[in-house]
């Protein structure tokens, strides 16, 4: 059974891990998406396809890859990151970045088609161009971030392997749900899932209002 204090602990860790991971993924994925949309460099097409394909990266594989790296006997074992929230954050960042990058690319490609000539006529630098597009796309980018957040919050395969679902240390909502499931406490597991969903709903609601405000400011 789960006690209230324990539930709070688990929820807090889930949020911490996933929010930090999504933040990092956004910091990498959004500029990457912008670069894929506006850059013209060799290998760009391959990179776009790769980023899209990486959306299908199985979490278990990411978990295993990191496990092999971070394990005591692995090349980065010295860092002692295995079974820490840091390892979980790294795993989720890897999983979420392709999603955010892929959607950002789509969003930026459309905007870039619209603004490219205008910005080039103004002699905007590459960096000014990226910043302008990010600013123009900010409300659409929120959907990309929400998709990433959904993936992170609901993800289990990777955090289970690199976190280890260790009680009071790396147990998050999804691994707790899996544990209760394997104990046969199916209804408790479903209830935990609904709590997770309610959390996700609350975050989405907050961002929805943020986005509506941005959108209204942009279009009126």
């Amino acid at each position, binding site marked *: 059974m789960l006690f209230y204090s324990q539930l709070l602990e688990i929820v807090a860790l889930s949020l911490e891990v996933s929010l930090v991971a999504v933040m990092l993924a956004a910091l990498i994925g959004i500029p990457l998406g912008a670069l894929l949309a506006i850059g013209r460099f060799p290998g760009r097409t391959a990179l776009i396809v790769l980023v899209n394909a990486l959306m299908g990266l199985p979490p278990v594989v990411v978990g295993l890859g990191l*496990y092999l790296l*971070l*394990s*005591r*006997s692995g090349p980065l074992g010295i860092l002692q990151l*295995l*079974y820490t929230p840091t390892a979980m954050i790294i795993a989720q960042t890897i999983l979420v970045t392709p999603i955010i990058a892929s959607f950002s690319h789509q969003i930026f490609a459309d905007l870039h088609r619209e603004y490219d000539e205008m910005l080039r006529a103004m002699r905007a630098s590459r960096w000014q161009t990226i910043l302008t597009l990010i600013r123009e796309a900010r409300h659409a980018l929120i959907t990309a971030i929400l998709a990433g957040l959904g993936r992170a919050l609901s993800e289990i395969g990777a955090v*289970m*392997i690199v976190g*280890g*679902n*260790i*009680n*009071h*240390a790396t*147990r998050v909502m999804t*691994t*707790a749900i*899996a*544990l209760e*499931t*394997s*104990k*046969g*406490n*199916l209804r408790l597991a479903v209830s935990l899932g609904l709590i997770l969903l309610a959390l996700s709903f609350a975050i989405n609601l907050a961002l929805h209002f943020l986005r509506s405000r941005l959108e209204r400011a942009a279009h009126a």
Partner: protein
Amino acid sequence: GKNEIILQSTTSTQNSGLYEYLLPLLERDTGLRVKVVAVGTGQALKNARNCDGDVVLVHARDAEEKFVADEYGLKRNDVMYNDFILIGPEDDPAGVRGARDITEALQRIAAAKAPFASRGDDSGTHRKELRLWKAAGLDPGAAREGWYRETGSGMGATLNIAAGMGAYALTDRATWISFANKGGLAILHEGDPALFNQYGVIAVNPAHCPGMNIKGAETFITWLLSEKGQKAIASYRLKGQQLFFPNAHSALPGNGG
């Protein structure tokens, strides 16, 4: 209906490759096809209670008996056994190797505060481990000791974790022998009679689950308990070692479960 049953099983039997060896023999003899769903013991019994299986094969004697007492299953039958072993890092920081029995071994781990990976998932193995700690006069889970890590996952995952951080762990021998990621781990204690591990098989009660394939379940159990089935279990070897010891007809003394 179809000559096919669903077996709700623990993971250790599946991971060890036993079914891949046994089931073709069974099918040849009886024509019965078995679909194996391998999950945690608790989930296996729960699924069977929900009539999502015709037979259960697990190793948690008290839970099995309760399952029968609650009339979800018919008779419980001993099938085979093996034993639990204590594994840990080769260099054995807690000095468990020389321990007289499992009780002393666990006490040494606790004294050294060496990392110990516990299943923590209420499975047969986990319950066994808790009983052993209790017998050693310790309760590290309740004390929330930092060295005692409840992994809340299956045997394989727990062994991966033990390998990843160099921890001690209790495991059944079949899973250990078939386990490939041994890392720097080795068997550090074995052979204590308290580490006995009995597997049981139960047909789901057709009175509780009218649609189930009772004929198939009976065929399965009869074959498994028959001379042929028992011999087949005994003859399954992995890396030259016998993983399971049939004991349908000769439940050993000290079969505490």
